[in-house]
């Protein structure tokens, strides 16, 4: 039989639908592969094979029952999926990569997860992440580092590094991720998979354990634009439980059609091709841009003049929001409690013991930026410069339909490569932060490999609510090239 773990989502659905394979068989194929290679990769914090097989069995029974009565079968009935461990799945612990939530078992489902469960997915487990999604390498997880399937001595990127590695290693057809400053796109780039960070407000944040609430978005990592689009479209849409979700209709699937890109205008921002970028990365991205030109797209040189300020703005706004969001971990209602003394001691010790060093660093930074005497100079100024960054994109999208740029300045770096230098790590995010600050969608996908055989990613950024143009462009590229079909040898 064909290797089921290599199937696209559409192939999985078709084969399930035709009755060639049951969900139990499909799920077992992925679980077997995980069993074999997970010790090298460590993509998961929590694996739930028994629950997955139970869900798969129910899916198979449901399919045959619905068939008998001639009813519609849910779109993804019986399809395995992995979920980043910052999203709540009722009854399975959600650690956020943190010791402080080691034993936290959410009593409800995140809306994004619920919609996919309603569509019939089977959850394989919860994937590794930098603690509270704060990081660019998955090295900040309290549950150990994830290894890049292309080179086990390298990081998978982060913070959705477990999801990216799981999709690349064919542990799952796709995995949910979240992106606050690049945490879907950068690991997608490092692991050679396709990742969508939707428009802010496109997918509900209900049940997503908060980091930076004005920036957080729920996305997906998959092995093609077509697969990513299937999952994205099911998650997207207004949710009464998240007041920041938007009521703009999600467009119909574009990846199925023959999608011409002729006439689309693609902007190339000069600020994203700077000194320090790895030559192979620049070359591959420029080559992909040329490929679009030969497909009939119009390439336009543009400028996003405030790009260089995105890093300082982000590292004020995100930590400020995090310092407020993470105040809830006080040892009272859930999470770790260290108790020795009175109430204040309990707060100090629970948080001191429960949080890892990057989380403490960002809480400290955010608390400082919001503290009396510094608020206007730091947080207030960052919010104003955020306006300038957002305006850069608004001006650009008057001229172009999408913006093409590298995802990260380099390919995957070595585990431990940044030592204990937080600023060097923050610079990894320099090309992904602006999309979050402006709230625009971004889609990352592989466009080549460097001399060490490591994947190189390009990102396309689009207008608010216009994920469809990004999918259309990425799908056209993937129909014309085969970089996205390369798989790591484990």
């Amino acid at each position: 039989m064909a290797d089921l773990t290599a199937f696209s989502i559409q192939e999985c659905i078709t084969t399930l639908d035709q009755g060639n394979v049951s969900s139990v068989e499909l799920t077992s194929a992925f679980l077997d592969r995980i069993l074999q290679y997970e010790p090298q990769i460590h993509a998961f914090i929590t694996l739930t094979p028994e629950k997955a097989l139970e869900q798969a069995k129910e899916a198979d029974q449901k399919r045959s029952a619905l068939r008998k009565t001639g009813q519609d079968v849910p779109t993804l009935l019986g399809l395995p999926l992995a979920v980043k461990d910052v999203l709540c799945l009722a009854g399975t612990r959600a650690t956020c990569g943190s010791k402080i939530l080691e034993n936290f078992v959410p009593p409800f489902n995140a809306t994004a997860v619920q919609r996919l469960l309603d569509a019939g997915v089977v959850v394989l487990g919860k994937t590794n992440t930098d603690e509270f999604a704060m990081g660019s390498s998955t090295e900040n997880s309290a549950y150990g580092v994830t290894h890049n399937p292309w080179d086990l001595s390298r990081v998978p990127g982060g913070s959705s590094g477990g999801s990216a590695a799981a999709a690349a290693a064919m542990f799952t057809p796709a995995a949910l991720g979240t992106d606050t400053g690049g945490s879907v796109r950068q690991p997608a780039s490092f692991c050679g998979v396709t990742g969508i960070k939707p428009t802010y407000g496109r997918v509900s944040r209900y049940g997503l354990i908060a980091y930076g609430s004005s920036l957080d978005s729920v996305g997906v990592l998959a092995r093609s634009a077509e697969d990513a689009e299937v999952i994205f479209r099911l998650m997207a849409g207004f949710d009464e439980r998240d007041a920041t979700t938007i009521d703009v209709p999600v467009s119909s699937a574009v990846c199925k059609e023959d999608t011409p890109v002729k006439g689309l205008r693609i902007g190339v921002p000069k600020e994203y091709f700077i000194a320090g970028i790895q030559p192979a990365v620049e070359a591959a991205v420029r080559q992909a841009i040329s490929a679009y030109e030969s497909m009939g797209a119009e390439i336009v040189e543009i400028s996003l003049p405030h790009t260089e300020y995105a890093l300082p703005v982000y590292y004020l706004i995100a930590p400020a929001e995090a310092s407020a969001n993470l105040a809830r971990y006080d040892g009272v209602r859930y999470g770790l409690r260290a108790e020795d003394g009175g109430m204040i001691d309990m707060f100090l010790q629970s948080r001191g013991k429960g949080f890892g060093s990057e989380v403490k660093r960002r809480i400290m930074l955010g608390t400082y930026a919001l503290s009396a005497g510094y608020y206007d100079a730091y947080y207030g100024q960052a919010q104003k410069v955020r306006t300038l960054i957002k305006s850069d994109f608004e001006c650009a999208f008057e001229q172009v339909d999408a913006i093409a740029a590298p995802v990260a300045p380099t390919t995957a770096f070595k585990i431990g490569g940044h030592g204990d230098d937080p600023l060097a790590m923050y610079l990894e995010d320099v090309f992904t932060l602006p999309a979050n600050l402006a709230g625009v969608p971004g889609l990352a996908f592989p466009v080549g490999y460097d001399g060490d055989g490591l994947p190189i990613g390009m990102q396309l950024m689009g207008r608010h609510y216009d994920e469809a143009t990004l999918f259309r462009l990425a799908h056209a590229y993937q129909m014309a090239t085969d970089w996205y079909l390369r798989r790591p040898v484990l």
Partner: protein
Amino acid sequence: MTLSREEVEHIALLARLELSEEEKTRYQQQLSAILDHIAQLQALETSHIQPTSGVLPPSTRLRSDEPNEGLSREQALENAPDVENRQFRVPPVLE
């Protein structure tokens, strides 16, 4: 921009984080370096710029004022470190 050790201790207390002496030394250095990098924002003239707190147009959505099911008391207490009489139990606030 260099943070003093006293400032680091003050921020840690505001944030309710107990730090070891080694952590205080490390954060003093690292936060100072990060704040140095961030200082480039001060160079931008922004007196006429409106701040952005969220990227979407602000809107207040209304719904009908009808009670609906939330978490049960048992569910809400499931993850609590300490419970007494179906309530969260905490250490003494006042001695």
